[in-house]
């Protein structure tokens, strides 16, 4: 039976360049990446349930859940049959889609914590009860819900409970803040992307996923570096799709809204 690895999360899982998941994936016969940039934790749960229905996860599989920002809400754009996953509902007020503006009018921090808490709880309970090898880790830093946001004491406790459900406590965000002076890439054409770089993903893996710091992982990293270009964001996006996503990942299957 081929070894299978399924990765879930946001853009810290599926990005314009290699992520922790892409590096771990080198160690498995079949590697599936179900990350979606900007999606919320509820959507991660929904994708998990969808893929379980297609691939029937078993105790021989390995699954990672990268917990994303709490303040997100994913909705379907029916006209175009695509998901609208614009990321955090704060800090990015220039997002122009009308429906996102609408959801931001009713969203609030306590409901946001609730949605993430129930989603991560359900995932944790299902994975543990079915003896599926897994690691839940915080991709993004949600500590603002303990400090800056008007979160109630009860919601603050739930934020701590979410962190307790994680097998790794340090988020990628915190790791980068602690160990680097700069994050992201400045492209030659003037565009930029402040997501963690491939090197930062690799260093995070070395610290928190040492079991997967293998020769295969090192080769995967070297390959990802070889196809990386700073020319422009668009060129890198095309490179990543053509030379990695289409070649090194397995097709997810027939999802409702790809």
């Amino acid at each position, binding site marked *: 039976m081929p070894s299978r690895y399924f990765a879930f999360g946001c853009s810290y899982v599926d990005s314009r360049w290699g992520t922790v998941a892409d590096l771990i994936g080198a160690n498995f016969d079949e590697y599936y990446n179900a990350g979606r940039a900007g999606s919320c934790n509820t959507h991660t749960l929904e994708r998990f349930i969808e893929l379980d229905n297609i691939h029937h996860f078993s105790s021989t599989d390995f699954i990672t859940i990268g917990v994303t920002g709490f303040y997100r809400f994913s909705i379907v754009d029916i006209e175009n049959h695509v998901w609208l996953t614009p990321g955090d509902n704060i800090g990015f007020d220039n997002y122009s889609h009308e429906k996102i503006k609408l959801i931001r009018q*009713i969203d609030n921090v306590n409901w946001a914590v609730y949605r993430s808490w*129930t989603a991560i709880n359900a995932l944790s309970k299902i994975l543990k009860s079915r003896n599926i090898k897994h690691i839940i880790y915080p991709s993004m830093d949600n500590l603002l819900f303990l400090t800056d946001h008007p979160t109630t004491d009860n919601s603050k406790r739930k934020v701590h409970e979410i962190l307790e459900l994680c097998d790794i406590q340090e988020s990628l965000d915190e790791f980068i803040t602690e160990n680097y002076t700069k994050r992201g890439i400045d492209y030659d054409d003037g565009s930029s992307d402040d997501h963690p770089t491939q090197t930062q993903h690799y260093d995070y893996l070395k610290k928190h996923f040492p079991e997967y710091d293998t020769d295969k992982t090192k080769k995967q990293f070297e390959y990802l570096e070889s196809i990386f270009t700073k020319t422009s964001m668009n060129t890198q996006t095309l490179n990543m799709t053509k030379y990695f996503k289409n070649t090194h990942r397995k097709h997810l299957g027939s999802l409702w809204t790809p």
Partner: protein
Amino acid sequence: MNYHNKRLFAFGCSYTEYSHITCADLIGVNFGEYYNFGRSGCDNTFIANRLVEAHNKFKFDPKSDFVLVGTTGFSRFSYWYDCNWITVGDMLPYNGENEQVRWISENLYTRYHALYRSVLAIRTIKNLLTALRIPHILYPALDYVNYLIDRDYENIEARGFTEIAIDECEKIEKLYDVQTSIDEFLIDKERKNIEYKDSGHRDTHPSPIEHYEYMKKFMPQFDSIKTQQVAKQFSRTTYDSRKQLAEYMDKFRVAFRKDIYVEEAYFLRDYPLGQGPYYKHRDVL
């Protein structure tokens, strides 16, 4: 089977917790401890989330617990706003008076998204209960088949559905332990709705006696003498007023249900829909 030493946890919408007894209540009287988490007008995502919350608090045990989940209508959207859960029932289309809900219905929510959320919530419920090995019955309280009929692929675009969505929706029938909804069960029957003399209002929800008939047919293992006695006590279909029925119902709640609003059980709590002594422990966020 003896349920006196067991706990029952019931989840659903107004077909589970209402101003009169429901199928869940008739089953619940047989258990040593009975917790009812139903909420009028909620969506299936709300039900799935309540299940997660309840398990987190009460630590479901396969040896001592039983879970009953009555899924609700698909075109619903529950959300937390201004320290209250907004659970208005079907909203695609929405004909009520809440301006915010109308705005969501007309501008934000779609049948496609509603279908997706419901099917995935029902799958989550079944997945979780199966993974935890908790004895359970998952049944469609409200009819969902109306979302599947008209399988006219020429109109899929117009309805905003794709083939895969309809196929996925049809597959959830296999997840149910009872396939027939209460709505379908009653469709060809002469209705026995509750009526109030003072207002002349006729409640279209299934009445206690209709809930009992459904339970007797599809979950006969719970049709005990105690259940029959309670069903008989609520067999009237005419009451002087809502208040009169509420008084009976409050007595039932105090006698048979455990308080679900125990300390720190839920972190998004709001004011109650009902106003009986049962609710006195509820507080606001």
